[in-house]
């Protein structure tokens, strides 16, 4: 029983961390209407930006996370302006393929600079806290805290700022938003900045506990997509619900599958949801 509980605990932590990039992914989908695979490479970019900030500049974890957010967010805007925006008029499929190609380009830029070796952040290695047969690492708890803060910031942004409200308007009804004078381009840039910034935070959080390499983002993209789809593509609360679901499901899968099959869980979840309830748990465009 403790085994199952431990897995659930691990799953909730993993799910909360997964929610960060999932929100980014689903927000971009809500506004720009195509699945932006480059969330994978921006997660990697964020992870490495944070790594440089931490090991190169000696910044503590929370500051390095901010760096990850800013660098990934900026990269997201630039990449979209240069590459994806001109292709969006050609349709969602072309944009999706271009996003896959772009993610390969960005991943290899990182690989060119840093090589393939695993790297760890310069953080003290501390023993896990144990209680009642369960163990949880101090780093995991910190990740949880950072993820919650990030999500709270996003919700506040969407609810209270002008740009946030404009974003919701465009996601809800782009034509009406245009008529009301909301600048679609500005909104696109904003959502890319926030969305990819969140991907960057996600990439770094993944690596804080373990290590990072150029494939960090790619390894997690299927789970991110699964979280967004399960919760309902385009719905931000849906992304959170979906991420927690996927996080726990992946951990529980360890009861019967080898650890390497966690990605398969995400894949199966996507299939199941798209076949049986394509709107996801909270439904597309629910906000």
């Amino acid at each position, binding site marked *: 029983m403790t085994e199952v509980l431990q897995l659930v605990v691990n799953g909730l932590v993993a799910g909360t961390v997964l929610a960060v990039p999932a929100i980014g992914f689903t927000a971009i989908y809500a506004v720009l209407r195509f699945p932006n695979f480059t969330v994978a490479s921006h997660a990697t970019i964020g992870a490495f930006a944070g790594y440089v900030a931490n090991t190169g500049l000696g910044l503590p974890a929370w500051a390095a996370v901010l760096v990850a957010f800013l660098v990934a967010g900026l990269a997201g805007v630039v990449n979209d302006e240069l590459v994806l925006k001109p292709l969006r008029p050609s349709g969602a499929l072309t944009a999706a393929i271009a996003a896959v190609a772009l993610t390969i380009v960005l991943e290899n830029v990182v690989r060119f600079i840093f090589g393939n070796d695993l790297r*760890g952040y310069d953080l003290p*290695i501390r*023993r*896990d806290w*144990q209680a009642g047969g369960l163990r949880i690492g101090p780093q995991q708890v910190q990740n949880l805290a950072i993820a919650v803060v990030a999500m709270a910031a996003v919700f506040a942004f969407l609810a209270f700022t002008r740009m946030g409200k404009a974003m919701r308007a465009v996601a809800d009804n782009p034509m009406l938003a245009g008529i009301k004078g909301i600048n679609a381009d500005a909104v696109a840039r904003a959502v890319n900045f926030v969305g990819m910034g969140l991907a960057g935070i996600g990439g770094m959080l993944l690596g804080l506990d*373990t*290590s990072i390499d150029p494939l960090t983002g790619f390894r997690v993209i299927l789970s991110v997509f699964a979280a967004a789809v399960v919760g309902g593509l385009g719905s931000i609360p849906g992304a959170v619900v979906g991420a927690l679901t996927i996080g726990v499901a992946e951990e529980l899968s360890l009861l019967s599958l080898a*650890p*390497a099959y966690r990605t398969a869980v995400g894949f199966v979840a996507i299939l199941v949801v798209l076949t049986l309830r394509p709107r996801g748990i909270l439904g597309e465009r629910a906000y």
Partner: protein
Amino acid sequence: MTPSPRSVSRRALFQGAGALAAVAAVPAAARAQGGALRLGALNPLTGAGGSYGPPMRKAIEWVVSEINAAGGILGRQVQLFAEDDQTNPEAAVRAARKLIDVDKVAAIMGTWASAVTTAVAPLCWESKTFLTTVSGSDTITQLPHLGYLVRTQPNTHLQIGKLGEFLLSLKMKRVFTLAAQTPFAVPSQKRLAEVLTKGGSEQVGAVIYDKDKTTFRSEIDQALKARPDMIYMNGYTPDVTVVMKELYKAGYTGGKVAQAYAVNGKLLNSLPAEVTDGTYTVAPSPSIDSVAYKRLAKVLGSDDLDPYSCQCHDHASLVLLAIAHAKGDATGTAIKDHVRKISQGGGVKVESAAEGVKLLAQGKEVNFDGASGPCEFTETGDILDTRFRYEQAEKGKFKLLRIA
């Protein structure tokens, strides 16, 4: 890729040119045509074995340059083509094809990782190219290599046998094996269980993981559930680094042991002392008292050579002596047929290829003993026996326990 500039010194070329006239009957086989003898080096310059590749290559280059400086073999200079296998079987196969198809080498020397050797071996025996390796997996000499393969590293059976005895001597009762996916993972597991059981202890469990992951939390959980007093980390440096970090975080306080190529100086430098302290390491010990070792140590600039550069020194020496014994027939088949004639049996004991070539030219027989050991091979290409070196990590440095 062009051959490395150090391997063919211009001075030696001019020296050897005069002796070219002395070349008599040279077989007309494609690879043994008049002109330079062509040999290949395939070492891990990058990847998990990346810290060992450069000294391995340097050792081979040095032996070749010594031979060339002494006039080559029967007047023919030796040309070395060196490639990086990236500790990756796929890259290694492509590099090997280039060495075999384009550079037409008679031998490929110095593959390190067992998976690399397993992938490259069929290409070698099918094209009758001689392969010398430092890989240890039992499965390698069990391949149908038709004699085109020898290795200077003790095989898994021997290595794990000694490891098991060592753990028994430490009075360990419950050993858990955490292994990366490699050709030797399963044979190691089986052999360790065998040795431990015979000594009254037990291998309480074994897990094989895919080494390309960044976290091994579930595998660690499995290991700790079995309450071992010793964990054998049978992987490579990158994954063992992560395993050790996670063992520490999980609060494990029992014993840890690994092969020295995994827990090496680089790993000790990258982790805090609390994480690595107390870890035991095992490695085959080179013949540190031999003349060959001492000369190689001077060339490589270190008193404490890793076993692989010593073995590579011996690879190059054995291959060149075999060609010399075959009267200059620089083909894989000739090397295969002659390598044991110069490495074991009667004959003058020599510890350098240059010395041996000179004696062979005088019609004498030789028996080469190298920097890694006496280099005596069985029919299947394994070495007969060797000594081992046991160390323990203490405050971020290695302490030698014994050589036995």
